[in-house]
């Protein structure tokens, strides 16, 4: 199994989730994160004092999938999350050794 971890723009979360559901992905986990990258943060001015906010709001998606679906999942995420503008984010793939569904105790691909 592989863990696909994608960092995307917040307003792309719904499209990505829908696209993944369509290809049969049944589970994923989402975190609200702050991103730092080529796309720069912004400056806020309050009463003349400048506060530079280096980080931008992003959403991190983590989903574990069987090995043979990695290609397709990456494709689908990219299609749904792309705007073509800087800051669109990244997709990373990491190997997962074991998995278990807490409710049933199933393991391996069955747990996903």
């Amino acid at each position, binding site marked *: 199994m592989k863990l696909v971890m994608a960092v995307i723009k917040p307003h792309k979360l719904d499209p990505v989730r829908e696209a993944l559901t369509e290809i049969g992905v049944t589970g994923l986990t989402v975190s609200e994160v702050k991103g730092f990258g080529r796309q720069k943060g912004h400056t*806020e001015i*309050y*009463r003349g*004092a400048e*506060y530079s*906010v280096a980080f931008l709001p992003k959403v991190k998606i983590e989903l574990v999938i069987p090995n043979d679906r990695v290609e397709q999942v990456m494709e689908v995420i990219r299609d749904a999350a792309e705007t073509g503008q800087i800051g669109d984010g990244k997709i990373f793939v990491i190997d997962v050794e074991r998995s278990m569904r807490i409710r049933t105790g199933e393991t391996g691909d069955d747990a996903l």
Partner: protein
Amino acid sequence: MLPLARYGMALLAVLLLPMPALAEDSLNSGDTAWIIVATALVLFMTLPGLALFYAGLVRSQAVLSVVMHCVGIACLMTILWLVVGYSLAFGDSAGGWIGNLGKAFFSGVGKDAMRGSIPEIVFAVFQMTFAIITPALIVGAYVERIKFSSVLIFSGAWLLLVYAPVCHWVWGGGWMAGLGVMDFAGGIVVHATAGISALVIAMMLGARRGYPEQVRPPHNPGMTATGAAMLWVGWYGFNGGSQLAADGGAGMAIAATHIAAATAGMVWMIIEWTKFGKPSLVGAVTGVIAGLATVTPASGFVGPLGGLILGAAAAIVCFYAVQIVKHSLKIDDSLDVFAVHGVGGILGSLLVSFLALAMFGGNGLAEGQTAVGQLGVQAIGVGVTLVWSAVLTVVIVKVTGALTGGLRVSEDQEIEGLDLASHGERGYDIGR
């Protein structure tokens, strides 16, 4: 009645106010109703108004501590005002410098004692709410880094040594009243005293850790705006109530107050829009508060046009005052107490000399007084108040520091945030 004559009478009334109730005073239930409500409005300004206004501007780890400062001050000042403060400010004058202790514990202030057309007890509680908000204004100078014990000791001493005397001089029949200093609702008594003391304590305490680069932006501008809105509403009671009657004078004070607030808010927005490209909510409501502070000393003496001019002047002058304190003086008067309240109060206290003239729709000056002459009087009032407040604040800070082992919390506590470090609480525990 001629404007001048009217003003003369108003002045006369001011001078007479500190005296014991005159035999002919009889209760006016309309005036009393208004001053009771005004009292509630001024309490509302501090709690929750000022508490929210300030608390929204700090980082989220210190939001509760700011509210706690305001609550603690409200409680302690109430007790001190009852015990001795009211008497120091409004007791019979000892040579124009301070009231005697004849009214300690509100002695003699029974249900039937009168002050003009309202019961004196109503007047005493109305003034109590002023004695609460004035030291609470200073909170903005020392947020995120001060010990709570220091807050209480400093504020208590400050009430008795700075606020009560100045209040006596101006409103309690003291020497400034004799001189003809005009301060309708507290440009000198409230805003100048608190503003300059804020600057002094900020300097003595030192800046927040990481200031200015690593300080966090306001954690909740909506909370700040909510507090500012409450201050705006409550200020009707602050300025309108200072008329001590429900009449056209109160109405005009409120008109000028409201117009100044709105104008200052508008002008501050325009300045930010021009300078920074975007008008901010924090800026707009800061402008509103600057306008309110500035119109305060003038509110009962000027007309709507005066309010308009005071508001515009407030926004321009206070906006640049903020920049100067931050960028030139580099003092971490964290929530701009001096630049907004102090400078505003001083500005209004000076401008009233002109704007009270009939040509600006004001009530006119005392008979025989000219605008320039009045300006001199005002400058003396302001100047002496600033010096007195600053010097006494230095002394009080030193003594407080000695008593509490330094005013500042440890660096660790400052990093952790005062909410947990000093009060054992967290501002937000929001699950999803």
